[in-house]
Structures are given as structure tokens and as C-alpha cells.
């Protein structure tokens, strides 16, 4: 059946760079391990399974440079292997503990398979999950895009040099990792402002995404609303996020993830289990923490955590099937309504954080698979397209300049600029300004290897200080001490290194330690921060 509309599905995968080789069980590294087991492995498995059956997923996946670096970090891969092994060891004990409780036993077995699948996929790719993603892109099954080097909220970087550094480092990182130049750019937090049009184009990007309300305050009326792409005056392609398809997945009121059959995020064996029993699987500090073994379901709206019932994987999958059907029925109605009104086929752009699928919404990967399968099985007149495919085949998009916006709470920059986190900006700007000044000073000088290394590491530290994650963690009060320490350390280390180069007294031992810990962007050249007239 010919298509009556197209769907562009974007999964944005990002984690802040967390790498602590000095600690064998660093709490925040669990963010990465949990996301690998619950999100990245299941999504890659879905994509590979579909591709193997001749069902082309046709989605776009954004991999942030910091996440990409973690996925290729051998020390983290080793720790991930230990994490998975320890969970499998615990699950063996859990099988015995649950042997007289059929409902619990079913869920324990389900988790055992989840971790066995993760171990198998990691083994298949020798621990490097970039390999299957690269293969899927090479085979034309998906399109991989990138985002700012350390996920900085670009409209909050006043200096053009800082924006350029975020874009240039990301483009180079992508080329190194995926062996081709990037075409698409995911704006961190969907944070857009018009000056980014030229910066993105000058950095070699062809298209990006904005929030839907960016069109409400655009320079010209957007006749097709979010249902078609646009272009800026300098030829940058723009896709606007469809609010309806987002709401069904994200919203607390209407969203699928709140279904009573779905897994409850907050009940975890790390909190529920007998302390001595779970102690070997906690960190060296012995403080209870999530172990990733969550045996309960949401059960009901407002149900007390203690009143949650056991998770039933089969019942949850039945709801996945119903939700996938509902999601597609709503997309069909959108396309039918648009076609009836306009006589043309709409494009529905659905963008989500990848970690929603699996980590937060445990059944998310199964939902994604069900949606893609149903289009084929039920011969629905919808097709998944990648952004580049769509731009290459659609009519010349209308020119527009969207309004300043983000996908954060309230639609602008409040989550990253408020009284809980605004104190960080003097440190971010102190490092950034000094980095730019020093890059300009030394850009044309012959430098010793040691001084070059110090300047390159200062550039890495400056980029890491600019990450949106520190402000956000401070805002929500989660891991706030860690966020503050990281932000302050990156800014201080950048300033220290720059000072040492200027004063010709680089501490090589301290530099080597920083290079080992914050080893992102291996080809970093500090000159990326130097002023360029066209920027």
C-alpha cells in the first residue's frame, strides 16, 4: 500500500561523561551500566532483529559524543562486564529464593534472560556497542546523528568560539567514530536560537530539530505546522517535533509508561532486599542503591510503593501491543486529517530521549518494535523515514526562522538557569573565556609536546564544564553534590592547565592523570577554541 504519511522517529541517546578509573565501584558509573543493559542493548537487539527479518527500522539515532566515548572506553567495558556478571550471580541466588513463589520466580527468570542477553550482545561485539550501530547505519537501516560535544545548552554559550568548539569537536568525533561526516545535529535539550543556523551550517551540518512551539514564534507563518520540514535562509534543514506523539509517550496524564501493568521504577531489590543478602552487590560504601532488579509493576495510579504487585512480563507485553496499536491509530488519524485538509502527505516527527525506552519505560524497546512491525504486518499506509532520506526526496522546504525555545520544562531555559544552579555560570565562563584567550595567544606558535598536551586537555576540561547535565542535576536535586564537584573540577582544571602553560611550568604527572580520567576527544586540538572571523 502506498504511504499516506511519513514518520520520523528520533531517539536521542546521551549520558554525561562519567569515568572514574580510580574507583572500582563508582556510584554514577551505574548510570551507564543500567542504560546499557536496559536501553542500548535492547534497542540494538530490536533494530538487528527487524533488519534480519527484512523490516527496515528507518529511525534516526542520536549518539552524544560523551556517550560514544563511554561505549568505546575499555575500562568501562570491563566494569560493565563485572556489573553484568555480578547481577547474573545474584539472579542465581534469586532463583533459589523465589522457588516457592511462582509470580516472583517468573520475573526473576525474566531478569535473568535480560542480563544473559546483555552479556551475549556484549560478547558478540567484544564489548563495543558502537560496532552494531555503525553496521546498521552502513546497511541503510538507521541514520546516526550527533549532538554538541558535551551536550551544552548552546543558547547559553554567549561566545561564538565556545559554540564553534562544541560543534567542531562533535563533528570530528562523529567522523572518527562512524567513518563519515555527520549530516544531522541534535540540539541538546532541543535548545534553539537563530544564530545557531549559521554556526551549524558552517560546521558542516545539514539539518537539525526544534520544539514544536519554535514554529509558533517563527519569522514567518509555518503553513504546514510541524507536518513538514523547513529550511533557514542559509539552507539548514529544520524538523519540528510533533507534540501529540510525544505526549502519548511522555505525559503523566496520557502517556503509556504509566500503565499499571508496566514495571515500577522505584521498587528495587537494592532497597527491598535483606541488607546482608544484597550487601555484596552494593558499592564499597555499603549504602543501599538500585541494583537494577525491579520486580514490581506500577499497579495503579498513586499506589503506595509498599502496595505494588509483582511484575508480569506477559501482561506487560499485552499492554505494549495495545499501546502500539493505539499509537499508530492516532498517527493514522493525524495523517488522514492532514491529508483531508491539505491534500498532501504529512511528516510526523517524534523525538524522545533514548533512555526513556528501557531504563525509565522498561517496555519502551518492545513498544518501538511493535510499532514498526505493525506498520508492516497490518499494511498501514505509513512509512518510517530517516531525516536525510526525507530531505532528499521532499519538495524544497519553505524558508523560516524558528523562535527561541527548548524542550525543557516551560519550553525555554528555566531548568538550566534558576536559583538552584545559576552559581555555576561564573565558573563555566571563567574557563571558557580563558580558554579562548589562550587559544588565540598560542594558535600560531610552535609549542612543545607537553604544552600542546596541556592546552588540548584544557580544551577537554572546558568542554566538559559546559555540559548541560550539571545544571540539570542541580536543578532536580539528584546527584547534586556530584554535579557541583564535576563542574567545579573541570573549570578549575582548565584554568590551572592554562595558567601552567602561560607560566611555562606544566605539571606532567597531574596532566597525565587528567588525560587518563577525562579521555574524551582523543584528537582534540585546542585551536578549536580560537576566534574565527566568520563565526
Amino acid at each position, binding site marked *: 500500500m502506498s504511504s499516506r504519511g511519513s514518520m520520523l522517529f528520533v531517539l536521542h541517546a546521551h549520558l554525561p561523561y562519567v569515568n572514574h578509573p580510580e574507583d572500582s565501584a563508582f556510584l554514577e558509573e551505574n548510570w551507564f551500566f543500567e542504560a546499557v543493559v536496559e536501553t542500548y542493548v535492547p534497542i540494538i537487539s530490536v533494530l538487528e532483529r527487524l533488519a534480519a527479518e527484512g523490516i527496515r527500522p528507518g529511525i534516526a539515532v542520536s549518539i552524544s559524543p560523551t556517550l560514544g566515548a563511554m561505549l568505546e572506553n575499555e575500562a568501562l567495558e570491563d566494569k560493565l562486564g563485572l556489573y553484568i556478571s555480578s547481577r547474573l550471580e545474584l539472579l542465581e541466588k534469586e532463583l533459589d529464593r523465589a522457588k516457592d513463589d511462582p509470580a516472583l520466580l517468573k520475573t526473576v527468570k525474566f531478569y535473568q534472560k535480560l542480563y544473559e542477553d546483555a552479556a551475549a550482545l556484549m560478547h558478540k561485539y567484544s564489548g563495543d556497542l558502537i560496532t552494531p550501530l555503525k553496521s546498521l547505519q552502513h546497511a541503510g537501516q538507521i541514520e546516526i546523528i550527533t549532538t554538541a560535544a558535551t551536550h551544552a545548552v548552546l543558547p547559553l554559550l554567549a561566545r561564538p568560539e565556545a559554540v564553534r568548539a562544541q560543534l567542531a569537536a562533535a563533528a570530528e568525533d562523529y567522523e572518527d567514530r562512524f567513518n563519515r561526516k555527520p549530516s544531522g545535529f541534535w540540539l541538546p535539550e532541543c535548545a534553539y536560537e537563530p544564530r545557531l543556523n549559521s554556526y551549524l551550517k558552517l560546521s558542516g551540518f545539514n539539518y537539525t530539530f526544534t520544539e514544536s512551539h519554535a514554529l509558533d*514564534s517563527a519569522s514567518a507563518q509555518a503553513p504546514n505546522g510541524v507536518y513538514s520540514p523547513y529550511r533557514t535562509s542559509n539552507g539548514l534543514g529544520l524538523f519540528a517535533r510533533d507534540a501529540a506523539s510525544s505526549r502519548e509517550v511522555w505525559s503523566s496524564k496520557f502517556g503509556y509508561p*504509566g500503565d499499571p501493568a508496566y514495571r515500577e521504577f522505584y521498587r528495587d531489590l537494592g532497597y527491598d532486599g535483606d541488607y546482608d543478602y544484597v550487601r555484596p552487590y552494593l558499592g564499597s560504601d555499603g549504602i543501599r542503591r538500585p541494583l537494577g532488579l525491579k520486580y514490581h509493576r506500577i499497579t495503579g495510579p498513586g499506589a503506595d510503593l509498599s502496595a505494588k504487585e509483582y511484575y508480569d512480563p506477559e501482561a506487560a507485553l499485552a499492554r505494549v501491543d495495545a499501546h502500539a496499536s493505539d499509537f499508530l491509530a492516532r498517527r493514522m488519524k493525524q495523517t488522514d486529517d492532514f491529508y483531508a485538509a491539505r491534500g498532501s502527505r504529512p511528516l510526523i516527527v517524534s523525538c*524522545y530521549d533514548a533512555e526513556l525506552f528501557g531504563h525509565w519505560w522498561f517496555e519502551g524497546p518492545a513498544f518501538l518494535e511493535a510499532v514498526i512491525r505493525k506498520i508492516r504486518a497490518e499494511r498501514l499506509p505509513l512509512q518510517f523515514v530517516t531525516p536525510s532520506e526525507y530531505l532528499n526526496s521532499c519538495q524544497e522546504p519553505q524558508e523560516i526562522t524558528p523562535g527561541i525555545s527548548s524542550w525543557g*520544562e516551560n519550553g525555554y*531555559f528555566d531548568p538550566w538557569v534558576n536559583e538552584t544552579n545559576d552559581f555555576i555560570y561564573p*565558573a563555566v565562563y571563567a574557563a571558557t573565556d580563558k580558554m579562548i584567550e589562550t587559544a588565540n595567544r598560542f594558535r600560531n606558535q610552535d609549542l612543545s609536546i607537553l604544552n600542546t598536551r596541556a592546552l588540548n586537555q584544557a580544551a577537554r576540561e572546558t568542554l566538559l564544564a559546559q555540559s548541560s547535565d550539571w545544571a*540539570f542535576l542541580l536543578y532536580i536535586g539528584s546527584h547534586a553534590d556530584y554535579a557541583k564537584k564535576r563542574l567545579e573540577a573541570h573549570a578549575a582544571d582548565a584554568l590551572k592547565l592554562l595558567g601552567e602553560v602561560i607560566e611555562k611550568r606544566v605539571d606532567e604527572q597531574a596532566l597525565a592523570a587528567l588525560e587518563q580520567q577525562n579521555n574524551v576527544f582523543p584528537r582534540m586540538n585546542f585551536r578549536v577554541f580560537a576566534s574565527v572571523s566568520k563565526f
Partner: protein
Amino acid sequence: MPELSRPLPPEDRLVLLPKNPGTFFVFWQFSASRAESFRTASFSPEIELRLYYSDDKTPASSHKAQWQAGRAYLPVPERGGNCEAALYALRNGAWEKLLESNQAAAPVTAGMAEDRAYASLEFHKKVLS
């Protein structure tokens, strides 16, 4: 109010950032000599933050603050658009311009913000809890 745990190099800096359609965030720092001038009362402790429209440099609004405060939230002037800030201090009865900021663009209100499904993991985490 949270603060940095370690001091920053004393430098002159005034930065204006967009927050939302109604609010700019501004922060400032002083070089050691300027800070000393405030400490020794060469400058009055109350400073003035003036906003200008960037397109024609006309004054848009002005706001008082204490020099040590280091940061403030300013209402976006009526015309919105691109603005820049300047920091003035009073010495011997005359206002002196000490710092100038970058340009910052205020977002335009798009409406319906509260109805939208904002995609942030932690937002999602909160609403599901």
C-alpha cells in the same frame, strides 16, 4: 543559596543570558582592583544594571543591585528582542560604566507551554513517581 566552593580568578565580566520570555539572567565579577574600590567605598555599594536594546542602543530599563550579589534576574524589557547590559557604579555622585555584556536574545512567548509534554528524563521520573 548555593555557591561555588572555590574562588575564581578576579576578572571583570558581565554576562547576560536568556532564561524565558519574561526574564534575563545576568552575572558579574570584578577584577581585584575594582573589587577593592568597592570595598574601600570609592564606589557606592549599590550598582545599577542597565539594559539596552541592541538594535538601536536605546535604554530599555535599569535595576539596582548590591555589588557583591554577583547575579540577578532582570525582567525582559517591553520590546523584547536582542538586549545587552551595562553595569554602572556611583563614584563622587557620578555614575561610571564599569562593564558591558554580550548581546542576548529574549525568547518570544509561544503560549501553551504548560500543556506541552516536555521531554526530560527526570521530569518523566518525577511525574511517574
